């Protein structure tokens, strides 16, 4: 693959070619075997992350369904199989159906209430608690108190002072991001949270969670979902993230 073709394919997959030039690339991919091979690889790479997300969702479904099958020593174990007709206890059956109806109606009511996920449903913040360090004591207690009182503008100002005195304070940086988010400065919130999300601290999942919430607030569901997928199993907010992914369009 020569450098010119490499650049051409980069531009194609970055959407930077005119339609006429893009057509030429596709024609070459249809007739030149070596170019086709590279084009096919790039196509697969472009699509890979979104396919990986779908694959994961499917694996979760398979994991849930397969529990009812493949029982050892029960090669006939298909719950719907004709050889499995047992005596039906009608009273118990009726009670189960009634209970099921109640649950179903409850679920319908609940989901009609919630519909698409809303920012406010998920924006539950742990209290701010900063380690006392150096000369930022007053700023720290101001920040903690303001945050507890939901005075996010006030907490923001205090946190800026804390960070000025202690730039390495990741918790303060995270909460600065939360305050920016609560005061509708979503772009700035992401700018504050992004270094934490990309860093190695224990707060990276938290930061990814809040970045996702910032997009949820803007109703940018694609970006929200994308960021939720960075939260790994076992990390903070993993279950909530998975639940939200299912509810997003």
């Amino acid at each position, binding site marked *: 693959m020569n450098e010119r073709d490499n650049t051409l394919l980069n531009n194609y*997959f970055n959407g930077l070619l005119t339609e006429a030039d893009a057509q030429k690339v596709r024609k070459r991919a249809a007739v030149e075997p*070596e170019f086709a091979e590279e084009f096919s690889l790039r196509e*697969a790479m472009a699509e890979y*992350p*979104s396919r990986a997300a779908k694959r994961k969702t499917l694996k979760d479904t398979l994991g*849930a369904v397969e529990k009812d099958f493949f029982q050892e020593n029960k090669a006939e174990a298909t719950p*719907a199989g004709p050889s499995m007709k047992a005596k039906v206890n009608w009273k118990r059956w009726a009670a189960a159906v009634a209970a099921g109806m109640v649950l179903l109606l409850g679920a319908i009511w609940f989901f009609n209430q919630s519909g698409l996920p809303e920012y406010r449903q998920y924006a539950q913040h742990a209290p701010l608690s900063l380690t006392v360090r150096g000369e930022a004591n007053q700023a720290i207690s101001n920040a903690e108190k303001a945050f507890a009182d939901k005075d996010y503008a006030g907490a923001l100002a205090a946190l800026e002072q804390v960070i000025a005195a202690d730039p390495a304070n990741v918790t303060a940086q995270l909460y600065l991001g939360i305050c920016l988010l609560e005061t509708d400065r979503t772009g700035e919130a992401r700018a504050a949270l992004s270094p934490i999300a990309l860093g190695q601290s224990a707060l990276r999942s938290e930061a990814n969670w809040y970045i996702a919430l910032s997009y949820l607030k803007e109703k940018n569901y694609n970006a929200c979902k994308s960021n939720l997928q960075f939260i790994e199993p076992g990390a903070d907010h993993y279950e909530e993230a998975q639940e939200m992914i299912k509810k997003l369009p």
Partner: protein
Amino acid sequence: MPQVGTYPPSGYALFFIFPLHFPNLQPTAMHIDQKYIDALRRNDARLIREIYQQHSVQILRWVQARGGSADEARDVFQDGLIVLFEKAQNDAFVLTCPLGALLHVICSRKYIDRLRQKGKDSGVRKTEERRYEEEQDSDILILAEESIAEQQKQERLSAAFAQLSDLCRQLLSLLSNGVAPREAADQLQMNSVDTLYRRKNACTERWRSLVLANA
């Protein structure tokens, strides 16, 4: 766009041109089991459950008859469905044979691969492979091979992707999931979309060399 796969260079070029001249050529009709391919595309749990109801016992028996456990049969069945999922990502793919027959060939291959990895008796494996292949329709065998090849390609992409930096993985994921370049640049604190694309090109190059190194 005809599916462009990892075909050997010679002679296959015509295969790509052909559909452009005869777009409506459909040699065989769609099988009624096509709904299960769609179910895998859409993650339709109800229809997926039907796949298990209709086909899991056969695979369980087949694996157990060859000394495998129920757990192994379950894993091999899941592997088989993931292989079909990968094939189904090509929107142009239409199932023209019974799902059970295709799934059986794929699952048996997957089970034999497991035996191979465990270093189990390779004599038995070769006999099994030959005997099994002689019993199958050649179209189904070819389709199974293509599907498994697609899934193995995805595994190579996945293994290489996991070795990229967090920034590369986040950047490529955001763009693949349809986030606008401007938004992705802002989130990743890049000054401009140009910077984003330059970084993307570098990440892509790194990922590509990892994939090809492990091919």
